[in-house]
C-alpha cells in the first residue's frame, strides 16, 4: 500500500512538472543574463505556457497561470496584472490553434507562436508605455521575441520527450 501511494505521489509530482517549472521560472526568472551577452534574453514562461496549452489543458490550470503572472509582475517590478494578461492571451491563442488544427505540425505551431508572442508583447509594450508611462527599450523587446521564438523549437523537443514518460497513475 505504501509503495502504491509513493508511486501515486511521485506520479502526481511528475505530471505536475510543467506547472512546477512555471512557478520556479517566474520566481527565479532564469534568463542567463549574467553571461552579459548584449540583448540576450528570452521568455521561458511564454514557451512553456504556449506548448502545454497547445498539447492539452490538463497540465496548466488557467487559475494557476494567472497566479504565476501575478508573481512574475511582483518579481520583475511590472504593474500588477500585466503578465497575467499576457500569459492568459497566450493560453487563448494556443487553445485556438489546437481547436483549428487537425494534423499538428511543429513548424506551423512554431510560426503561430511567433505571431502570438509578437502580438502579446506589442500589447504589453503599448500598455506599459501609453497607460503607465514606463519607458521600455524596443530593441530589448525585439530580441527577446526573437530568442524566445528560437528557443521554442528546442524546448518543444525536450517537452515532447518528457511527454513520453507520462505517468497515468
Amino acid at each position: 500500500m505504501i509503495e502504491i501511494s509513493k508511486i501515486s505521489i511521485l506520479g502526481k509530482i511528475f505530471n505536475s512538472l510543467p506547472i512546477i517549472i512555471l512557478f520556479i521560472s517566474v520566481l527565479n526568472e532564469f534568463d542567463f543574463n549574467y553571461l552579459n551577452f548584449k540583448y540576450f534574453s528570452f521568455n521561458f514562461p511564454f514557451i512553456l505556457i504556449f506548448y502545454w496549452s497547445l498539447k492539452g489543458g490538463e497540465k496548466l490550470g488557467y487559475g494557476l497561470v494567472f497566479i504565476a503572472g501575478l508573481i512574475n509582475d511582483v518579481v520583475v517590478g511590472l504593474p500588477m496584472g500585466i503578465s497575467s494578461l499576457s500569459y492568459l492571451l497566450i493560453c487563448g491563442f494556443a487553445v485556438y490553434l489546437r481547436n483549428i488544427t487537425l494534423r499538428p505540425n511543429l513548424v506551423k505551431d512554431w510560426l503561430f507562436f511567433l505571431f502570438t508572442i509578437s502580438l502579446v508583447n506589442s500589447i504589453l509594450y503599448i500598455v506599459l508605455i501609453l497607460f503607465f508611462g514606463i519607458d521600455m527599450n524596443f530593441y530589448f523587446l525585439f530580441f527577446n521575441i526573437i530568442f524566445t521564438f528560437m528557443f521554442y523549437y528546442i524546448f518543444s523537443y525536450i517537452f515532447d520527450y518528457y511527454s513520453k514518460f507520462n505517468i497515468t497513475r
Partner: protein
Amino acid sequence: MQTNRDDFIIAIRSAFLKKGNQQRFSLIALILFSIFIIVLGKYNFKGVNFLKLSIKEIVYRTTFIVSVPENFVINSYHTISDHFNLYSNYENLKKDYESLKATKLNADFLKSENEALKSKIDDVSTQSSELLAKVIIDKKSPFLRSVIVNRGSKDNVILGMAVLDEKFLVGKVVEVNYSTSRVLLLSDLNSKIPVSIEPNGVQSILSGTGSSFGEIQYIKEDYEIENNSEIFTSGSGGIFRSGIPIGTTIGDEEIGLDTIKIKFHSDFSQLRLVKIVSFEEVKQND
C-alpha cells in the same frame, strides 16, 4: 465563406469562453479580471495596493530561496572568470593604486579646505545616515533594471533614498514594503538623475539605457565634454546630496553613437551588499 467565418467564431468561442475539461475558470473571465487589476493598479486603488504588498512580502522571500541554486551557478561562473583574469586585474589595480595614492592626498586637502570655506560663508553641509542592506533578488528583466533589498519601512527606509555600492551611487529606492524595498538602478530606462560633469561643472541629467551604461541627456551643444570626465550627483532638486561619484564619460568610438555615454563605476550585476543612505542638511555654524 459564411462557413469559414462560423468556424472561426466557434474556435474562438471554444478557446476563450468555454471552460476546459479540468479548468475551474474560463479564460475570458480571468482575462477580464487581469484587465480589471491593471486598471485598478493604474489608479492606485487601495485594495490592489494591499494585495501587492502582501504578495510582495511572500514572493520576495520565496524568490530568494528558489534562486539559491541559480545564484550558486552565477557565483561559480564569476569566481572562475575572476581566476582567469587574475593577472590582468592585478596589473590594472597596481596602476590604479599608484594614481589614486596621489589623487587621495589632493582630495583630502581639498576636502578640508572646502569645509573651512563653507563654515566661513555660513553654508550648509550634509550629514548622512547609512543602513546596510543585502540584495536578495537581482533579476535583470529586459524591461526593468532593479534589485530587491532586505530593508523596508520597519527599518525606516523611505521612498527616494539613495543607494550606494561602497562610495558609488547605484540607484534610488522606488518601492518600500514592510521588510523589503525595490531599488531602481541607474541603468534603468526610467532612471533620471541630475548630475554634474567635472572638471567643467556642466549640469545635466543622467538617464539609464536599459544596458550596462548610462546616457547624458538635455545638454547644450556648445558645452564640450571630454572623454573620461567624472560624473557626480549635482544635488539639484534635493534628491541626493551633491558630489556622489557615479561614473565616467566614454568616447563615441567605444559605443558608436553620437550621444555621450557613461560607464558606471559600480558593476550592477555584482551587487551583494549596498548602503541605503539618507542625507540631512546641517548648518555649518550650528
